[in-house]
């Protein structure tokens, strides 16, 4: 097992390199070079000056060098083992160093700072949404398998499929329009994750102060999170519920369950110890994707609710051909994806003793 894990971990490295080469190549061949947005405020300038600024930017980010050199430089920067690079771009000694994600062309900020700002927001949303989806769908899946063919099963199956088929973009706009808009109910805020007016001075818990009732930071955040959470979660139930249901059903009709029942094992015990444990394999495959999923922001939801999460950061970087940001996010996402596959494969071996990697 340990050798297997080690081998897989080593294999991640060439895959990551291949992945970044492909992404880098696509960015390099994309027409227009680096973003025209970088030169936005130079439009009124004399062409000569403009050219000089362009040359300066290119030199500053190393864009005047051939693509392979640019790629190798980026790779050296991002890898934890490599050459030290000083401020003038000279290579220093070889050794272990801190990985550097580079600087964003568009915002002239370190990529790590940009990600550091966007990631907590996306993580908050995902850490609320994903447990809701998993808890509800696995429970619903088990119960609809137990009562399969009855009203509960049919109703949950149909309604979850119905929910799944409504596009998020429609739901988001409808929710904002009906529940949050000033013209209608105004139950929820239209955008953002915090109240803009009273940020900073707000106490954490709800309190009763001299100005009357105050919501407090916690309640305010939850209040802002309701609509985005609904949008992010409602489409996720159908697939996971179906998966749990079919896995549990397959095991419910198997021989060992009949044997357990014949021995006189209680129905709850049969369901959760014998059936559910054996139905874990397909769930592990899906659960492994939580890891990269935590990082991925939903572009649609973030745009509708004006949340500055990872999705928005990524799409804006793509639009502006902000190479360092795109490459960093693709690289981190890819690495988490590869790790999640490894975790899934190890999970199979733990859940099912018949699986072995010897």
């Amino acid at each position, binding site marked *: 097992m340990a050798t297997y894990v080690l081998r897989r971990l080593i294999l991640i490295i060439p895959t990551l390199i291949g992945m970044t080469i492909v992404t880098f190549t696509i960015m390099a061949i994309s027409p227009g070079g680096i973003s025209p947005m970088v030169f936005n405020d130079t439009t009124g300038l004399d062409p000569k000056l403009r050219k000089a600024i362009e040359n300066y930017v290119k030199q500053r980010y190393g864009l005047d060098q051939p693509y392979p050199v640019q790629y190798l430089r980026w790779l050296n920067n991002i890898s934890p083992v490599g050459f030290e690079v000083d401020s003038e771009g000279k290579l220093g000694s070889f050794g272990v160093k801190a990985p550097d994600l580079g600087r964003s062309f568009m915002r002239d900020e370190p990529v790590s700072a940009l990600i550091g700002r966007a990631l907590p927001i996306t993580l908050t949303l995902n850490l609320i949404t994903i447990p809701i989806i998993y808890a509800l769908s696995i429970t619903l899946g088990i119960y609809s398998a137990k009562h399969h063919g009855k009203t509960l099963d049919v109703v949950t199956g149909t309604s979850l499929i119905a929910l799944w088929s409504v596009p998020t973009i429609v739901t988001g706009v409808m929710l904002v329009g009906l529940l949050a808009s000033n013209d209608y109910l105004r139950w929820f805020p239209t955008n953002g994750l915090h109240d803009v007016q009273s940020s900073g001075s707000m106490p954490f818990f709800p309190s009763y102060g001299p100005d009357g009732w105050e919501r407090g930071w916690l309640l305010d955040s939850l209040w802002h999170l309701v609509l985005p959470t609904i949008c992010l979660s409602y489409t996720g139930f159908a697939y996971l519920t179906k998966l749990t249901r079919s896995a549990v059903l397959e095991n419910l009709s198997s021989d060992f369950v009949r044997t357990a029942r014949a021995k006189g094992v209680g129905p709850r015990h049969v369901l959760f110890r014998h059936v559910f444990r054996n139905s874990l394999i397909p769930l592990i495959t899906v659960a492994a994707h939580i890891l990269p999923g935590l990082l991925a922001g939903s572009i649609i939801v973030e745009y509708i609710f004006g949340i500055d999460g990872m999705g928005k950061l990524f799409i804006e970087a793509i639009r502006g051909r902000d190479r360092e940001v*795109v490459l960093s996010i693709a690289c981190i996402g890819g690495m988490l*994806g590869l790790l999640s596959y490894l975790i899934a494969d190890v999970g199979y071996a733990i859940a099912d003793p018949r699986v072995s990697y010897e």
Partner: protein
Amino acid sequence: MSNAAINNPLEGEPPLPEPPESQPQQEAVLWKGKARSWVRQLIGETLSRWGARLGAIWIGLLAFVGIFAPLIASSHPYIMKVDGEVSYPLLRFLTPTDITLLVLTFTGVVLYFIKRLSSGKRVMIFLAVMVVTIPLSMFKKTPLIPNHRQYRDLEQAAALGGADAPKIDYIIRAPLPYSPEDYLRDRPETRLKPPGGGHLLGTEINGADILSRMMHASRTALAIGFVSTGIAVVIGVTLGGLMGYFAKAVDMLGMRLVEIFEAIPSLFLILTFVAFFGHNIIMIMVILGVTSWTGYARFIRAEFLKLRQQDFVVAAQACGLRSFSRPHSASWALARSASRVGVRCWNRRAAPAENSTGGSPCSRALRSS
């Protein structure tokens, strides 16, 4: 002695169809006294469930609307006689795509009802018609800037009367007399209106009829779905099969390729290609196909690796058939696992609500066979 004959007694499989790819009909089973081909049986089993039936009806409806959209929703009349002159404006404005689709649909329907020909011949005829129609339809010239309002203007002028008013004998319009690009320039007051007044679903912000636009859009929607999924299945099954068949180094390299493709941001790829080739719908279909094959490849590979471990393959290897039995069982496995995938994809796609007893009766039968 063929390898099949060696494999069979070892495993107790039913007789294998000799080249399994070329003669799928050999797997026909007796059903209500009538032999049905395996594909037909599969479709029958799937369509026996109401969820699948609803899905099939819906897709059929979409396809019908998509194919006949220019006949159902168009500003151009089928036929009109003005000042004693008969003209067919709709025919003039049919695009090469419209003509190809209509001709192929007609051929397909006619061929379906000619039971005398074998299915192979029918497919050949269909392909021949397709090969002939597509280049021929390219010769059709369509006016670049269609004037949608001219017919309404004509009618209005005739209604007003006067000395030089046109005389309309008859004018036969489509059931929905609005083209998707007909922005009703002559009626600026109808922009962004709720349903009513001849517009069953209302009008959009430019004044075009929404129902008409949806009908024409269903063609694009279906085309993207079918073409991109088709490309993905072809690439995925081929690469997955190769990976599962050769295993070892090929498998390792292949899996790395799969992982690389899973990590490429396809949105970025699409944006890049759009920048290169413009808003080309075919390009988008191809990119969607090329970036979404990894799931199929993983699935087929797993199926193959499972088959490799099965007793009959191991036994055949033990019999000394190392070099020969593998290709054979693999080709057989390709047909079988591809069909199995077919069952699963069909189940999943046509009836997501239905998977009650772990697959359709058909796939259960397959598993137990």
